[in-house]
């Protein structure tokens, strides 16, 4: 539990009639409440660093600090179990502060109040706290998101992972990097999103029906990665964070610095990661090391009261090893690997060395956001986003070819948008925009292999209109989006002699969505969201052609694919039974007509490497229904119990079978104990989490090489403390009992166990 975000309304009121400019007579008063529940936070403290004194809130959340001289001050606000946070204020008179702390991180927010992209009030949003991002700075984005109920991870070993939200992954979900749809080769199941969580301040997930305001090709749910605006503090502030992990002997070093200035404000953040071979309970997972460096810069410039420009740039660079024993030549090799306890090529030596098979990925991003605020009720934005993705995959090859990438792709993406936000009355808004996106993907020559994905150029033009309003106790939202997609792909024939075969596709899509939230009382809210979304087939679904090394199958695209049509409804509710017990639930149903999936064909294809199964992209109808539940119970100020449960059933209604790669049901229990504030150690807590992942029973044996692995249970332990307000320390143990298990959503389940016990030590210093 920590302060995830803190928002302050500074209201200056004079409650003393006579003001002496230089006398120390001013009072700082205020009220501290819980952002989610509006309950006052008794015993929360406000401390003025410069004066070395402060006050604690009373039972109504009120505090007062008297006899303050005019000046600028840093405030430290804290509450038991919450993360301490700094705030900068200019005292010129008596000042009243309204402070809302995010005391319940397990509870979904109604609104994203951070960042620059305000979200609808009728959809539910789930966030990762800033402190959780720091604690998990050594992890991938997807592994951090997995903490949220309803979010699972599709993996290719522990190093490569992508998020699954309510059964949707890859192109079916939208990943927004500071408002920009993350480009990159998102089609590949073994391609992780090229994002360093540390470079951002907020990570959240919207389990939605439609993402009308964004130009991606998703079916509703969104992962949002955002930087917060640079805090209005003229001093240089920053932090350094270091994480060591025993499993893989991994080092992660992060640093962040920022400074606000009326002319130009800036923030810079960077990450260095190095880890070696990880270890399953019984053996090393050979060649699973990773090297990574990332850098992010954010600049804010205000030209006039109306005009401001924000620039964000980031660079992501990684080199990841892939388990050597998972690199196989044909089905015989796969069958042999399936019978083994320990993968081939397992060595009993730890090494940081990374050899083929491996991936080298580089992603550059730049976004320029220009905001023109004509008045309080009308805002225009003109934005540009550019992305470059460079992906090289190295296989074990004959001769010296292991140093030549077997797949080498370069993708450029340019995005332009013009947005308008108009407020008609206090609670009625209109948002609209036009967007244009052009992406080119080129195979770099010199790989000596036929490309799996052809070169292509894709252009999308879209426009949207969203209406939002509040009528008495009901928030409502309705919107429409139109997209025109054009795709041109010159492919290389599979017959010999090779020729170029050119294809073009045009898709026109209309998406509709609406939602309403009924605020029955402060304590009970219920929302219904529904949407109709169309997704055009992606390049891999249309034209991929070749041998997929990892699973020993030949994958063939299908140029005749139609669009996927999704209809989704979500019913969500929030219930506060009393001040100690909260309950939230989301119930959803999604029907996808012409759902695109890889269908195993009956024929085997004979090659010099033996006979291979053939998979072609095909369409069926899919039904997904599920429930996500989170509840928290707080019997005392010190103790908290959090339960999360996710249920999902994905069915192929045409073929009467389960859908592949659907997450199994999970339940997780967390018990946290917050210690009384000590003299030196503050905000000390210990938490124990026990997660059960059930077996995926919806898959028939004929749909996979192996039946899904058994369910498993994992225990994690975490101890946090702050040494004065500057140093934070975390000791964590993942997979506490060194449990041997395999996960259905990990492609490497055919070859090896998941990683064993991992002890992490984290130290952070902020200034």
């Amino acid at each position: 539990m920590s302060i995830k975000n803190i928002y302050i309304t500074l209201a200056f009121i004079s409650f003393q009639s006579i003001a002496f400019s230089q006398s120390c007579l001013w009072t700082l008063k205020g009220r501290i409440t819980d952002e989610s529940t509006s309950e006052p936070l008794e015993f929360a403290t406000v401390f003025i660093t410069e004066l070395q004194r402060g006050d604690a809130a009373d039972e109504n959340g009120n505090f007062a600090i008297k006899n303050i001289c005019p000046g600028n001050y840093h405030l430290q606000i804290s509450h038991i179990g919450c993360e301490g946070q700094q705030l900068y204020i200019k005292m010129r008179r008596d000042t009243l502060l309204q402070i809302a702390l995010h005391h319940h991180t397990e509870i979904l927010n109604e609104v994203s109040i951070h960042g620059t992209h305000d979200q609808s009030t009728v959809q539910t949003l789930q966030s990762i706290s800033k402190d959780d991002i720091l604690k998990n700075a050594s992890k991938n984005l997807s592994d951090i998101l997995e903490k949220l109920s309803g979010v699972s991870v599709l993996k290719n070993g522990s190093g490569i992972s992508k998020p699954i939200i309510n059964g949707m992954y890859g192109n079916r979900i939208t990943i927004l990097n500071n408002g920009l749809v993350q480009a990159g080769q998102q089609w590949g199941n073994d391609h992780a999103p090229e994002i360093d969580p540390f470079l951002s301040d907020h990570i959240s997930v919207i389990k939605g029906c439609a993402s009308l305001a964004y130009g991606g090709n998703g079916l509703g749910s969104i992962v949002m990665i955002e930087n917060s605006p640079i805090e209005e503090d003229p001093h240089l502030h920053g932090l350094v964070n270091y994480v060591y992990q025993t499993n893989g002997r991994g080092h992660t070093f992060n640093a962040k610095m920022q400074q606000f200035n009326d002319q130009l404000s800036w923030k810079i953040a960077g990450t260095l990661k190095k880890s070696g071979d990880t270890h399953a309970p019984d053996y090393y997972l050979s060649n699973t090391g990773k090297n990574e460096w990332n850098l992010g810069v954010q600049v804010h410039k205000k030209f006039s009261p109306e005009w401001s420009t924000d620039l964000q740039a980031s660079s992501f660079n990684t080199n990841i090893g892939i388990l050597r024993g998972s690199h196989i030549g044909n089905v015989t090799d796969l069958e042999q690997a399936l019978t083994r306890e320990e993968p081939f090529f397992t060595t009993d030596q730890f090494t940081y060395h990374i050899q083929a098979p491996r991936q080298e990925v580089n992603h550059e991003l730049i976004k320029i956001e220009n905001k023109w605020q004509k008045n309080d009720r009308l805002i225009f934005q003109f934005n540009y986003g550019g992305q470059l993705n460079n992906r090289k995959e190295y296989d074990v090859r004959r001769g010296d070819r292991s140093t030549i990438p077997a797949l080498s792709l370069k993708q450029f993406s340019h995005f332009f948008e013009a947005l308008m936000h108009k407020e008609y009355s206090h609670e009625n808004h209109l948002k609209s925009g036009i967007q244009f996106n052009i992406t080119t993907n080129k195979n770099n020559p010199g790989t000596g292999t036929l490309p799996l994905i052809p070169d292509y150029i894709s252009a999308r033009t879209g426009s949207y209109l969203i209406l939002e309003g509040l009528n008495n106790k009901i928030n409502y939202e309705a919107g429409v989006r139109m997209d025109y997609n054009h795709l041109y792909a010159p492919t290389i024939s599979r017959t010999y002699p090779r020729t170029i075969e050119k294809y073009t596709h045009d898709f026109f899509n209309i998406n509709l969505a609406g939602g309403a939230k009924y605020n029955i009382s402060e304590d009970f809210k219920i929302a219904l969201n529904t949407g109709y979304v169309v997704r055009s087939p992606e390049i891999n679904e249309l034209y991929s052609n070749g041998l997929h090394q990892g699973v020993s199958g030949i994958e063939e695209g299908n140029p005749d694919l139609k669009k996927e049509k999704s209809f989704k409804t979500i019913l969500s509710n929030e219930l506060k039974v009393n001040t100690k017990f909260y309950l939230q639930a989301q119930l959803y149903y999604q029907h996808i007509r012409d759902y695109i999936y890889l269908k195993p064909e009956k024929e085997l294809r004979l090659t010099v490497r033996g006979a291979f199964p053939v998979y072609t992209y095909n369409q069926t109808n899919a039904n997904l229904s599920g429930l996500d539940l989170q509840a928290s119970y707080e019997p005392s100020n010190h103790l908290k119990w959090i339960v999360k449960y996710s249920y999902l059933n994905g069915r192929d209604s045409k073929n009467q079978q389960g859908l592949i790669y659907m997450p199994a049901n999970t339940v997780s229990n967390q018990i946290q104990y917050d210690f009384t504030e000590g003299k030196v150690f503050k905000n000390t807590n210990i938490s124990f989490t026990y997660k059960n992942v059930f077996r995926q029973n919806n898959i028939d044996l004929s749909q996979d090489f192996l039946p899904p692995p058994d369910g498993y249970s994992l225990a994690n332990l975490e101890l946090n403390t702050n040494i004065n307000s500057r140093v934070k320390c975390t000791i964590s143990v993942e997979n506490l009992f060194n449990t041997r298990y395999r996960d259905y959503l990990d492609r490497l389940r055919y070859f090896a166990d998941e990683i064993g016990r991992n002890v992490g030590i984290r130290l952070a210093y902020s200034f």
Partner: protein
Amino acid sequence: MIRIISSIILLLTLHACKIPDPIIPNEDEVITTLTYKLTPLTGGSEINLQFNDPDGIGGAPPVISGGNLAPNTTYKGVMELINEQLHPPYNITSEIEKEALDHQFFFENENGLLLNIMYDDTDANGHPVGLNTILKTTTASTGTLKITLRHQPDKSAAEVKGGNISNAGGETDIEVEFPIHVN
């Protein structure tokens, strides 16, 4: 209205935007033709077992020609691997020779075939490679001969030296089957 017009303009420019044709890569690693040449030691005509797939993995199916062997005969076997997609055809056998430490052929009788195949070459560590072999037939039999080439096998594993593939590991670069009659 402005939105519609601008969309139309964008669409029109789009149709003009194409990308250059891709460069067709030279797939120098591909093995299009495997020939197992069998020459009777006592003289007589050479028998070629051949697997031929000029367009690689996709396209047309491969052509496989098996052979008729005489009973109670000893043949000298030579493996030849060619990539016919390159001009002139590229000899992959020499690549295997250079990387003999990382390669080994395996020969297995299937479906009732009775052949006896022994290695007739070694790498720098004294382990067999299988580019040169001695094949002996005994009584009449019919079945298939399965030839496998493993890349980076564990050549020191138990029985691998004798041609048993079970413990070899590594990745399969070649796996072909030939119908054989011994009569």
